[in-house]
């Protein structure tokens, strides 16, 4: 059942930020919007909350048209990136504030605040003021205030981006298990693709004033519909090479400078049908493997000689930038392997994992 619906909404300041954006979020759904900084993610949330007036379009919550309803009558809760905790109130008063606005009884307010504080592990801090608690605790207080009053929609604006890794992981787990979030619909904004992939039932990638792709984490990661999406989801970013496509003796190849790569036959069918001769080739660093001597396969058309330019060991994995006949490729490596600058290596590619994007508009050419 559609719970939140945005119908061709437009919002601009001195330039258009959101341009005819439409979206339907179901009841109980956790929808994550991901995109680079400054693309208009926060503006979108502020429009849903009613803090920004729409230039055009309509917003429906549970079927009610709330386009012109002021924020205090929308029954929407939002966490701000800066937490926005009231500095003159204690943690208890901050969480209780939305309940007080609803004129609930004191005993009910107290029990609800204690319930939430316990859930978020801040029950020992209720008498403290915001300046007396840590960043993670502030974040939880802000979240507590959002959860307190049973709103119709949750809007979470980069709620864990400023926290250290440990608390971030802890809170991320909490988002999965919070019942309150599953009862209504949640729109969660982040610029961290890993957070998006981990949390979202569906993910919307924002760019150029709208959502350029909507889908599950798997769909968006495996089948990005454009180079923009491919570049913004995945760490390290996808390798992109401008290529010419040729066919010699029924063997299609992609040529980038002196680098020649085989093209998967399934892909080639699509590309050939569309008469594509030039395009952008996208290769995920995860799908490029470094071959150790004994693993060398017989089909060496899929193997290339490269030279290590930069190697960074990042704990769980390593990131290497390697030069393959003049082209730079980023490769993800196993954590136990070590590489030296200028070391010669062999990498193996898998053409079936390649993506091909239109040179002009960046659209993925393989459906």
């Amino acid at each position: 059942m559609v719970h939140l619906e945005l119908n061709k909404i437009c919002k601009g300041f001195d330039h258009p930020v959101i341009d005819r954006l439409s979206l339907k979020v179901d009841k109980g759904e956790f929808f994550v919007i991901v995109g680079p900084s400054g693309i208009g993610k926060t503006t979108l949330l502020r429009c849903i909350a009613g803090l920004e007036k729409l230039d055009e379009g309509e917003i429906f919550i549970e079927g009610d048209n709330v386009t012109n309803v002021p924020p205090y009558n929308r029954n929407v809760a939002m966490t701000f990136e800066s937490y926005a905790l009231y500095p003159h109130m204690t943690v208890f008063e901050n969480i209780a504030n939305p309940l007080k606005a609803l004129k609930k009884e004191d005993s009910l307010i107290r029990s609800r605040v204690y319930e939430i504080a316990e859930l978020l592990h801040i029950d020992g801090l209720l008498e403290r003021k915001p300046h007396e608690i840590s960043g993670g605790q502030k974040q939880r207080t802000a979240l507590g205030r959002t959860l307190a009053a049973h709103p119709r929609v949750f809007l979470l604006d980069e709620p864990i981006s400023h926290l250290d890794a440990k608390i971030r992981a802890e809170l991320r787990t909490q988002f999965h298990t919070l019942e309150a979030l599953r009862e209504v619909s949640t729109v969660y904004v982040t610029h961290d693709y890993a957070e998006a992939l981990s949390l979202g039932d569906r993910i919307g990638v924002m760019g150029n004033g709208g959502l350029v792709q909507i889908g599950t984490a798997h769909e968006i990661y495996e089948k990005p519909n454009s180079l923009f999406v491919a570049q913004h989801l995945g760490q390290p970013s996808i390798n992109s090479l401008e290529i010419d496509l040729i066919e010699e003796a029924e063997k299609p190849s992609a040529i980038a400078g002196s680098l020649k790569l085989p093209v998967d036959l399934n892909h080639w069918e699509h590309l050939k049908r569309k008469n594509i001769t030039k395009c952008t080739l996208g290769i995920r660093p995860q799908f490029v493997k470094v071959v150790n001597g004994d693993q060398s396969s017989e089909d060496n058309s899929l193997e290339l000689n490269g030279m290590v330019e930069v190697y960074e060991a990042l704990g769980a994995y390593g990131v290497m930038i390697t030069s393959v006949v003049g082209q730079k490729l980023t490769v993800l490596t196993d954590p136990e392997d070590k590489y030296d600058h200028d070391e010669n290596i062999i990498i193996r590619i898998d053409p079936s994992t390649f993506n091909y994007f239109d040179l002009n508009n960046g659209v993925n050419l393989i459906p």
Partner: protein
Amino acid sequence: MTESNIKLIKIILLAFLLVWIVFTLFPLYFQLITSLKPVAEINAMVPTFWPETFRPGNYLGIFADPGSLKSLMDSLIVSISNTILSLLLGTLAGYALARYLKGIVGENLAFWILSNRMFPPVAVIIPMFFLFDATPWGTDSYVSLILLYLVFNLPLATWLMMVFFRDAPRELEEASYLDGYTPLKTFFKITLPLVFPGMISVAMLCWIFAWNEYLFANLLTGTTVKTFPVHIPSFTQGSQTLWNLVMAFSMVAMIPPVGMFIILRRYMVRGLSLGVVKG
């Protein structure tokens, strides 16, 4: 720099500080001892720096004139009323300027309001006299003096409150709207407590101006309403000014502002430094 040089600089700085303290505290000291001297001693050719005879009775003497107490009461009425009005109107106007009037119109309007404080008061004294004379309550009334002081205090209060409101994070108000509070309730529940230290500073500045003002009070009022600065010259008998009574009365008149400053200085310092550091 050698250690002896540092010591020398410290000594010079301390000496400078000592001179400064003498300069600032001596008038107060002289005011205090004069207020305790008998008339004969204040008229002595060679002034004494410690009273030969103590006359604490001077402090009772000033209240022998019923006008003294009334003038202090008049000053209190005028300055408190004026402060409340300045703060009330200045806060609302400052909020409107900070939140709703942005861009070139808002900036110019805000500057025009402040510029009202810049002209020399004496330049408008005659027009003001005729203006208030034409009102039903005339020149010699509380209302006239309160309104007149508003001309000077309101621009200052508006400007300062505007600056404090601009520094108060907008997001807190937005969070309050989403909690379910209307803009008016948000203003009283969230925004005002944020600028409260600033309001105390503004109140103090307005109150001190109204409490000490002499020029307008002397020219406009004097019979029905007589504030304490206007009352002080009445301690002159014939050709002789009773400096001991003048000083004793001034000491009494200093109590309210000094007392208030001591009680409120915590807010005063926070208010004046509000927005200097983000935190």
